[in-house]
């Protein structure tokens, strides 16, 4: 099976400093559509990703975090599935079949483009969980529920590793995701600054002053 045909190929060139599969692992996982994917090659390589931990039968933080991700997905719709992806990784892979994850995603209207719910061998999931979310503290790291309110934000092209609290404001999470955005050329920055300036002129022209929320 050509796994690459299932997902968009990475749009960025991986950073020469990326530790690649050695860090992320190349474990074989399954999506909610029962498609086989390799964690680094198919999901991380040359992409920007927001990753969270969940399980289908969770009635605590997981549904709340899924709702937050739905709002983020709405705000980032233009990029989702192109250069930005959401990965919800099941920490109860022994219970969460692809069908169970599909059901979870559908129930919460979260079966959206560029958002994959992932399950796999418990051995691999545990490795990925530690590689992405460990805090260097046994008490925190052995309790997988402790990470359910955290997003891990990575960009393999910039070798950026960040995180965001899922229960902070939408604006704050979006800002943290943007920190992992690919590097921009001076010309691109120039275009962004010009667009912002144009927006400011427009607001000032309309209201006579610049409001805080317009920034």
């Amino acid at each position: 099976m050509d796994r690459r045909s299932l997902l968009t190929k990475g749009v960025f060139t991986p950073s020469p400093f990326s530790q690649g599969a050695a860090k992320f692992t190349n474990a074989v996982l399954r999506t909610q559509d029962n498609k086989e994917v390799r964690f680094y090659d198919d999901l991380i390589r040359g992409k920007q990703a927001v990753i969270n931990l969940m399980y289908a039968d969770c009635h605590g933080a997981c549904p709340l975090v899924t709702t937050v991700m739905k709002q983020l997905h709405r705000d980032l719709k233009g990029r989702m599935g192109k250069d930005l992806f959401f990965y919800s990784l099941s920490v109860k892979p022994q219970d969460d079949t692809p069908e169970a994850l599909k059901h979870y995603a559908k129930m919460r209207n979260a079966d959206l483009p560029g958002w994959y719910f992932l399950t796999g061998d418990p051995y691999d999931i545990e490795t990925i969980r530690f590689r992405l979310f460990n805090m260097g503290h046994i008490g925190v790291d052995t309790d997988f529920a402790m990470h359910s309110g955290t997003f891990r934000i990575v960009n393999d092209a910039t070798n950026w590793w960040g995180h965001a609290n899922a229960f902070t404001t939408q604006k704050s999470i979006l800002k943290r995701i943007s920190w992992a955005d690919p590097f921009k050329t001076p010309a691109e920055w120039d275009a962004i600054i010009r667009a912002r300036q144009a927006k400011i002129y427009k607001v000032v022209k309309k209201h006579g002053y610049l409001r805080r929320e317009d920034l």
Partner: protein
Amino acid sequence: MKLTAIISLLAMIFLGSTTTALAQEKSCSFDLVGTWKAQISSTEARLYQFDDKGVVTVLAASGTAQPHQIATAKYEVNKELGKPESISFTATGKNRIFGSLKKTMKIVKYDDSSITCEIPGMGTTRWTMVDPDRYFIVLAARTGEFYDAAGSAFSIVIKLAGGVPTIDAFGIYLAKDGRALGTVPPDVYKNYLREARNDSETIVRLEINSRQYERALKIIKEWERRDREDALLYKTAAETVDDATYLNNILVAKAVAESLNKCSEDINLYPLNYTQRDDWISDKYRSALVPFYFFKELRLRNEARHIPDKKFQELVHLPNVASR
């Protein structure tokens, strides 16, 4: 600001409740295959040999006489929501099982080595697992071997079948070129299959049952695989590379010790949970020394069950160590 505080508080409550629910899980696997003994009187017992094809053979054992077969039957474990509820028996041929052709007994409780059942019209009976093999766990640690004053710390599991021990060990040990985390070689662990030398060494030796052995062995095998496949859980830790090795070893020591109590509170386990309220070891000592003090505390708490050196040497003959 206020809204953020409320949302954070709600999140903490949610996370807290999930954590508590998960921490309270205790599960015993139910596996009937094997031989179970029911003591009828001080001299008489019944042996039930369950095979994996759904057939049970009943043997009568009396005094020192050789057990003899008295019945055979087909059996089926009836489960509800994945939990075993009862065992149904159908006698084969001219046999009778519990005095009739068909009988269903309700499973009242079970753990690693016993099952208590209720047979209609006959009352409650307790079966204990009969295992010709013996199983041991040895938790050994030293200090003052490495540059940072820490030392070897590893878990050893032993299966004694027909007088031949099969030994598996994993943890940190002193290799020729320094400290190593991995499968402990026989010439290293042999030094620990005797009484501790002094205060810089601690050794706990306990006899365990087959299920406890299997669980502990599974953890050791998983970590051997992690070592082989470069899939150790802490790779480059949040702190330093040295700490990653020690943190991995704590995970193994903790998992192996906790696996003994997965089904029931069999040993007096120290709560290595990194909360200041319960766990003074992780609070007081750095990662490198945690396994040593953890094993030392386990020895103190389980002194009555610790197998003395002389007795252990009689049981486990090192020249007979089986190779894997």
